[in-house]
């Protein structure tokens, strides 16, 4: 170092140190400190190895940073491992990858696959009944009959075999089966598979998966360290291999270490026996050889029956509907023009007389649920006789004592009714009725009218023999009659009636008929005139002469003659409105 120093400084190294101290002293001390710190705090590789696990645990507990920074390295390592030794990774994840994939597939399929056929098949099988009969007939146990007809398959033996050596690890057999050479079978099977693999140069993990010996099928499921083989009598189902795969995966998972370290001692695998026994099964089902399956038949039968029932119900309800509509159409005052039958709601449109029966009630009586029927009626006036009568009955307020009927367009009333009703009926306008015949009706008049009428009709005016001159003593009765008639007219008018007075003149039976005829009319007219002078209107009166043709009977001939030389009265009462027919 000193070689490079300026020449004047060689003699005094102390001077140089001093100078150095002056120039970079603080920095040097800092450097020294740093070096010391590094040496004290710096860790050797061994020390790191010592503390690494705790350090990782500590940091991982604190936050996610460690995982984040390690992730790329681990990913890279796995990639490298897969690239160089794929079988290692495959072997490691074998126990978990199968179940994961299968579960995912099974979940998807579960929604699609339905067990309906199976359920029907087992519960509704006529085969079962037939087998029972056969068992009874042959005296064999029912179970034997079932197996004879319906044995699908039976897993009789399950072997767990060490993949590499072909040595039997564990073995389960059906209870009634004698198996002594399972270890030989296991080795032989391995040999056969080795042979097949060599002969057909198939890949390491595949190989012979099923082969048949007599009525047996041998199913083989190959794993990395163990092989599961099943000896099956009959036709094994497709999913049996899949279930064997599950078992094999479980074995790999639970017996990973014993499998890896296997050196001929099968003792640890005794614990796998329950797993193998799970695969022993006897499955019987409906005899399928005939190719006919009852399940679908029954299902179709049921479907057909349902269709038939529905059709029958539909036909019946249509028939009932039509019948009800027919009944409705025949109802007077209802004209059905259009029907629209729906599944939920039905509609009936047409014409309906307001006096007609309620359509809903008619339908209800025919058994139709009217809550679902909607009516659309145009009002109209029906000329159906029944409707006309019904309408007249309603409009006239007809009492029960009156019977109405229609003859042509004339309404015929019979019975008895207050005179006021008759008057009102005669005056009424009823659609479909051009005339009212109330001749069969006895009008019932109020007492006042009846009394006045009797008062008038009881009177007679006597005349002298052969004379038509009103005698002076007739004055008073004529006045009485005039008064009574005036009152009668007033009372009748109030009821809508018009009163008329018929004056009937008579003679005794002596003398010529022609003379007597004239005399009787003269007498009646004389009284008429007298009444006119007392205020009775001439148009309300009618004077007639009947001579002796309608005699008043009574007493001896002299008395009878006296009685008949007279005038009597008949009161008529008729409704004011005469245009619609008349009352006598």
């Amino acid at each position, binding site marked *: 170092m000193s070689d490079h120093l300026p020449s004047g400084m060689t003699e005094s190294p102390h001077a140089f140190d001093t100078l150095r101290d002056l120039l970079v002293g603080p920095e040097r001390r800092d450097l020294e400190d740093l070096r010391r710190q590094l040496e004290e705090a710096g860790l050797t590789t061994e020390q790191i190895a010592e503390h690494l696990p705790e350090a990782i645990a500590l940091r991982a507990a604190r936050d996610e940073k460690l995982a984040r920074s390690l992730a790329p390295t681990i990913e890279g390592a796995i990639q490298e491992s897969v690239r160089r030794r794929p079988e290692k990774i495959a072997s490691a994840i074998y126990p978990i990858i199968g179940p994961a994939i299968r579960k995912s597939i099974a979940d998807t399929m579960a929604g699609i696959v339905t067990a309906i056929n199976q359920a029907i098949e087992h519960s509704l099988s006529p085969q079962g009944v037939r087998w029972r009969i056969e068992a009874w007939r042959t005296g064999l146990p029912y179970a034997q009959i079932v197996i004879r007809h319906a044995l699908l398959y039976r897993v009789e033996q399950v072997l767990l075999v*060490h*993949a*590499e*050596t*072909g*040595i*039997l690890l564990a073995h389960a057999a059906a209870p009634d089966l004698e198996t002594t*050479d399972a*270890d*030989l079978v296991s*080795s*032989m099977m391995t*040999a*056969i598979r*080795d*042979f097949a*693999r*060599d002969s057909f140069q198939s890949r390491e993990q595949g190989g012979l998966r099923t082969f048949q010996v007599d009525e047996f099928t041998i199913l083989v499921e190959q794993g990395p360290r163990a092989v599961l083989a099943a000896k099956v009598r009959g036709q094994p189902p497709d999913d049996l291999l899949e279930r064997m795969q599950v078992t094999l995966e479980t074995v790999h998972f639970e017996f990973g270490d014993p499998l890896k370290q296997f*050196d*001929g*001692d*099968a*003792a640890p695998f005794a614990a796998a026996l329950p797993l193998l026994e799970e695969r022993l099964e006897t499955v019987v089902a409906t005899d399928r050889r005939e190719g006919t399956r009852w399940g679908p038949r029954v299902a179709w039968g049921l479907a057909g029956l349902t269709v038939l029932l529905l059709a029958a119900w539909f036909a019946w309800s249509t028939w009932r509907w039509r019948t009800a509509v027919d009944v409705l159409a025949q109802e007077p005052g209802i004209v059905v023009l259009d029907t629209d039958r729906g599944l939920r709601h039905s509609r009936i449109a047409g014409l309906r007389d307001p006096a007609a029966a309620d359509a809903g009630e008619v339908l209800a009586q025919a058994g139709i649920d009217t809550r679902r029927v909607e009516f659309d009626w145009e009002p109209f006036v029906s000329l159906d006789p029944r409707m006309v009568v019904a309408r007249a009955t309603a409009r006239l307020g007809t009492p029960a004592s009156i019977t109405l009927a229609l003859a042509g367009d004339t309404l015929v009333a019979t019975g008895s009714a207050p005179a006021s009703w008759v008057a009102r009926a005669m005056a009424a306008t009823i659609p479909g009725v051009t005339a009212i015949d109330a001749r069969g009706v006895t009008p019932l008049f109020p007492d006042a009218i009846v009394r006045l009428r009797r008062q008038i009709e009881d009177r007679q005016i006597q005349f002298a023999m052969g004379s038509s001159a009103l005698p002076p003593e007739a004055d008073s009765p004529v006045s009485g009659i005039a008064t009574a008639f005036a009152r009668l007219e007033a009372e009748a008018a109030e009821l809508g009636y018009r009163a008329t007075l018929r004056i009937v003149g008579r003679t005794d039976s002596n003398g010529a008929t022609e003379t007597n005829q004239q005399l009787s009319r003269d007498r009646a007219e004389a009284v008429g005139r007298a009444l006119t002078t007392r205020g009775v209107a001439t148009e309300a009166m009618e004077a007639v002469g009947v001579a002796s043709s309608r005699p008043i009977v009574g007493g001896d001939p002299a008395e009878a003659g006296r009685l008949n030389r007279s005038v009597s009265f008949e009161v008529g009462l008729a409704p004011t409105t005469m245009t619609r027919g008349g009352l006598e």
Partner: protein
Amino acid sequence: MIQKKICMVGVFGTGKTSLVRQFVHSKFSEKYHSTVGVKIDRKPVQLGGTTVNLLLWDIEGRDGTQEIQTSYLRGASGIIYVADGTRVRTFDQVFELRAIADKALGIVPSVCAVNKVDLVDTWQVGDERLAELDPTLWHALTTSAKTGEGVEEAFQWLAGAVIGERPE
């Protein structure tokens, strides 16, 4: 119970099947049956307190050594190489077979049985030839499937070897 896979390896007609038959069933037949593929037999062997169940894979013998199906060797704990002492060529082929098996399987306890020692007149494999077998790699002996000579010893030795005992 310990189970071990043992393979019988050798070319055509050396007596592999006959050795197994003698060992397992104590029987011998002059009739020759060639083995197709592989035949498997089982023999429990008592070794002190333990029973070793030997699963004997009697592999088909072929003419050439290259044709041996090594896949049958997979997982074997021990191998019995069989040569025909009356045909020296088959003894030579044992070495080739050994090389192929070691490559496929790795080194496992092995026995070299030079068979048909009862046929003294035609015997071709002398002691000097037997000495070629490295005792650290092989247990060499002469056997006769017909008389049973050496048969029990060959299998007993191998059974002990595969479970880790080496009887002197």
